[in-house]
């Protein structure tokens, strides 16, 4: 099974999160806000392409707004395979992170 990189994984879960507004600009804002790091266009666009190529995502044409100069958006949705991957990652993550508590380091 194709192993996702960390960024691809983060992009994938964000697509699921944003549902109908899962397109590049929104994803970028979402990820930037949450991770606190400025994501470049390329760092989102490339994972999106790879995910789509490997079948984790599907895309369709979204609305065209004047702010985009009349061009339409590309909206991404999770596929079954993508969902399976996400579920698996969640399960693995949960198992790895089970009983995680912050530990104070002594003086």
């Amino acid at each position, binding site marked *: 099974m194709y192993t996702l990189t960390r960024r691809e994984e983060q992009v994938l879960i964000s697509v699921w999160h944003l549902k109908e507004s899962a397109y590049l*600009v929104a994803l970028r804002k979402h990820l930037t806000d949450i991770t606190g790091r400025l994501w470049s*266009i*390329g760092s989102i666009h490339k994972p999106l392409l790879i995910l789509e190529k490997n079948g984790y995502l599907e895309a369709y044409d979204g609305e065209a707004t004047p*702010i985009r*100069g009349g061009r339409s*958006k590309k909206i991404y949705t999770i596929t079954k395979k993508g969902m399976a991957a996400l579920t698996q990652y969640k399960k693995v993550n949960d198992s790895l992170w089970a009983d995680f508590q912050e530990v104070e380091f002594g003086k």
Partner: protein
Amino acid sequence: MSIKNKALPGLGGKILALLTPEPERKYLLGDHEEIYNDLHKAKNGVYAYFWFWFQVTKALMEFINNTLLKDIAMFINYLKTAIRNFRKHKGFSFINIFGLAIGMSVCLFIIKFVLFFYSFDDFHENSDRIFMVNTIRLSSSGSELRSATTSFPLVEVLRNECPGVEKAAVLAHCANSSVSFNNKTLSAEFEYADHGFFEVFKTLSKFGESSDFLKQPNRIVITEKTAEKFFGNENPMGKVMHCGELGDMTIDGVIYDIPYNSQFHEIEIFASLSTLEDNWRNDKNKPLENWRRLVNPSPHLYILLRDDDSNENVETFLSGIAEKRMNYDRATYSFNIIPAGEYVFGTDLYYNSYGLKFWHIMLVLWIISALSILMIASFNYSNMSTAKALTRMREIGIRKVMGAQRIHLLLQFVGETILLTLIALSLAIFFHYIIIDLFFRLHPVLSTIFVFEDTISIYIVFLVFALLTGIVSGFIPALYISRPRPIEILSNFSKNGVFSRSNIRRVLITAQLALSFFFIMVTIASYKHYKYADNFDLGFNIDNVINVKIKPFQYRQLRNAFSGSSYVSGISASQYIPGTTSYNNHMVKRVDSIDSLRVSYLPVDENFIDNMEMKIVAGQNYPEKISPRDQRLILINETAVKLLGFNNPGDAIGEGIVSGRRAFTIIGVVNDYTTYAYYRQMEPGIVGYRPGLLYYANIRLSGNDNQAAIEYLEKKWSELYPNTLFDYEFYSDHIERNSTITSKLSFQIGSFVTFLAIIIASLGLLGITMYNVQTKIKEIGIRKTLGASVNNIISLLSKDYLILIGISFVLITPLTIYLHDLALKSLVNKSELGIIDFGIGILVMLAVGGITILSQLIKAVHVNPADTLRYE
């Protein structure tokens, strides 16, 4: 949120659009625009603008990185590998570079040489439409005469009646004359030209309008060089020069010097044709209206065609003319037209033509020789590369693992070869200048004929040539090295014999040996040919004879003045110099016969036969007390005797001969003598007394001190004829210049080429032997331990080589014999190749090859088994 949409900056938008592929393009552009607008709103316009351009820059860098830089990085990697390989095997690299450089330098020279010939007369305006008209005369007996001259009346007919001809020009031969101005007298090459000449050949005129040139009689146009000789930098228009027999001529204009690559290069003064037309008009033979007369006047006719398709129309028109005006029962005439620049390839069958001549076949031979030398060097490279394939196996293996396909490996190795070739090219360019220098040293006259210019296009040709050489040289070893099953290379290295069982290498080495042997034989053959030509018996004795250009009336005076001197042992005179030209041809027949025979006519004085030490075979010579009446008496040569139908020379005495309307009586028969060239069959000839046609004095010097003799004669001459040049040339120089020079040059060039070929082949042999000995060191060590003697080892190692020499001998000998016959087919008198010559060839091969191999063998044979087997 109804803020007006800010569009992306146009230029950046376009760049981005170009860099992103469909179908992503519009989405990405939309994304960019959206973020751009957001930023514009959130921060400010400037921020947004810079952000956007930052994106564009990133996209550009990505693009360059993906396409260009990865290739460049790969390219640099290959380059490093190549250089590493060259340095690891410095010896072989050097041998290859040096060999290829030598081979290429010869080819570079040949390229310039060939391009020189193909560029003849191409610099004229409309040169592709300028043609020359030739006449072909087929006599009823089947002999064909090709002439560069045509009939005089044809000029006006073509000019006025032929629609395909836009302009016509005539150039006619003029006796070379001396020209003087203000007490300065020099000799100059004169030709008659009509005013159409400078309209067809629009040379750039320095002074004067070319459309006005030579419209009236007694005008001349001179070249820049001539003008400088007489007038320095002044404008000589309108000045009057005294041109010997032609009288005073006014200068119409000055033209720039005619370049080397033109048939008119040697002409210095053009005189108006109308000057002589008056004389000819008064001639009762009416030569200007005689269609069948091709000499005296001898017009060379050049035409400028109206457009590109006129060739056939003009040729049809010309054949019509020939039918109508010229054909009769004795002979048929026809015309053909040739592009003006192709004249340089005419053969010596074309009588009376201008300028430099070179045979196509000679060019082909030179090209083949140059390519052969290069091939030897190429084979060296192929040989050595395949031999060293094993050392690169590790590198190749790794590349294959990393994903290289066969095509990549092929490209890599061919690329390496090209790199090597380009390095060799720089050395080759240096060498080729040396070759050009050596070429000009062959004979002083060469630098007046040839000039090799360096232009950008020539260097581009050189570069392309080097690339091709690299590709061709590297192709075979690349195929071998990149083979899908490299394990096979390993299996080739554990066999016996010097060259192992690698058949490719055997073939290559045999090819090299064969080529070298061929060149050696060519050198031997051309040496024999040269010696033959040099020692050929012309039928008269030319030792210590000088020929001086004179006017007929001067002969008696000269004879009186010179005869007494102790420097002079004999004087005679003739119209021209026999042995290099078949200048004066006439149709003669016996009185009671219908068939006429073309003979060469040599007008002489009564002393000629004795002075030139010719033999009287039958009858007698001219009487000592000769009178003008005796002009009706002639002597013929032995060939003429036979061809006129006499059974033996004695029968010809007293018989009558008719030529045109004149009758002659034969008083004697002389031995055959060479008219045109030593290699031509002896032509039938007539020697006749013509005091009015003596243009050359033949002075035989006593031979004690030729230098002093000539000084004396010159002094006497200037006493008799002040302001006239003492224009002399040694008979032997004249012959050499015209005849034997080709064989002499061929020999010199052939030996030089052979020398180069042998050097390269030896280098190759050295390289291969070095390598083989290296690989066989262990084997030799073992053999020595087992008791092999020095002789055993030498014979073991050289056995293969001898076999290959034998094979090349068997291949090359019949080829040489065949080509020798072919090349000299048109020569009637020539040298032959014998067994001894082939024997000499083999000896040379063995000697050279032997020395080369021996050096390595000796090293091998003194191998100490203890050293080589130490690690076993």
